[in-house]
């Protein structure tokens, strides 16, 4: 995992940066274990409490931790994919799962399952709910990544009149100044 390059802490006092280092180290342990937990929730959801939403939200919690330790940049660089792809692929996955049975002549979102015989796990039952749930999971992760992208950055520009002008959509659109 990358070091917190532009985290606010790096400019802080020694004690504070040590504290951050501590957090950083603990993150190294915590972070993967949270991801494993998320994986568990995702896969076990059909039989135990959990599921795509919970899985995704737990990943979101992990991201929140990373945000605290490394700032927005750390959240951004967590995954290789840009966040909108999570959203797009997630919806594509869920929607396709829903759509494929229609193409095969069934009903939308029709349930299907198969049982694999794998060497170690012996029998693994996979239902159509799984890809659907993975899609859900991806979207939740995408949402959280996007949310951090939207609000997570440190104060962008000094508040001031220039702020609005600099990223106002364009001069092209009429600003309807009312009486």
């Amino acid at each position: 995992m990358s070091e917190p390059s532009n985290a606010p802490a790096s400019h802080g006092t020694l004690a504070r940066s040590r504290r951050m280092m501590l957090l950083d180290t603990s993150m190294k342990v915590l972070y993967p274990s949270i991801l494993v937990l998320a994986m568990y929730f995702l896969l076990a959801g059909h039989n135990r409490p959990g599921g795509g939403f919970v899985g995704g939200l737990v990943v979101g919690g992990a991201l929140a931790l990373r945000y605290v330790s490394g700032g927005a940049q750390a959240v951004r660089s967590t995954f290789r994919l840009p966040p909108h792809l999570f959203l797009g692929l997630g919806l594509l996955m869920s929607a396709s799962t829903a759509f494929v049975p229609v193409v095969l002549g069934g009903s939308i979102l029709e349930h299907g399952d198969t049982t694999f015989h794998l060497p170690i796990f012996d029998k693994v039952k996979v239902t159509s709910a799984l890809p659907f749930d993975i899609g859900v999971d991806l979207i939740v992760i995408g949402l959280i990544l996007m949310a951090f992208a939207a609000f997570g950055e440190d104060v962008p520009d000094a508040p001031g009149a220039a702020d609005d002008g600099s990223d106002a959509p364009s001069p092209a659109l009429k600003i309807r100044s009312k009486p």
Partner: protein
Amino acid sequence: MSVLLAFAAAFLFATGTWMLLQRRLSRILIGVGLVGHGSNILLLMSGGDGGVSPIIDTADPSEFADPLPQALVLTSIVITFGVTAFLLALGFRSWRITHDDVVEDDVEDRFIARRHETDQAIAEEELAERDQAVEEGRR
């Protein structure tokens, strides 16, 4: 279903309403959150009395809490979360524009209200002209 929970829902609705009637988006947002919690309690209560977790083979199905409202509440929570995130973005944008999060009155509506107060209707000009014509016609 119990009086206590009904009261809790009603109370959340009441405090939420109080917050919704404020001018600040941040307070309104909190109001939305409270009212949302209130409606979720109602939804949860709609399945009757609580019970054990509805997970097959862990208990007798007759002791299960009604699972459907749970699923519905979950859906509603998640949707509210998404919309809240969007509203936050709106508040953020508002701050970038005005450095505040006051929900202002609609300017055009206020304009019409003022015009009403000063009694200057749009058609007044046209009417004045026609008035003159009438007077001439009466001569």
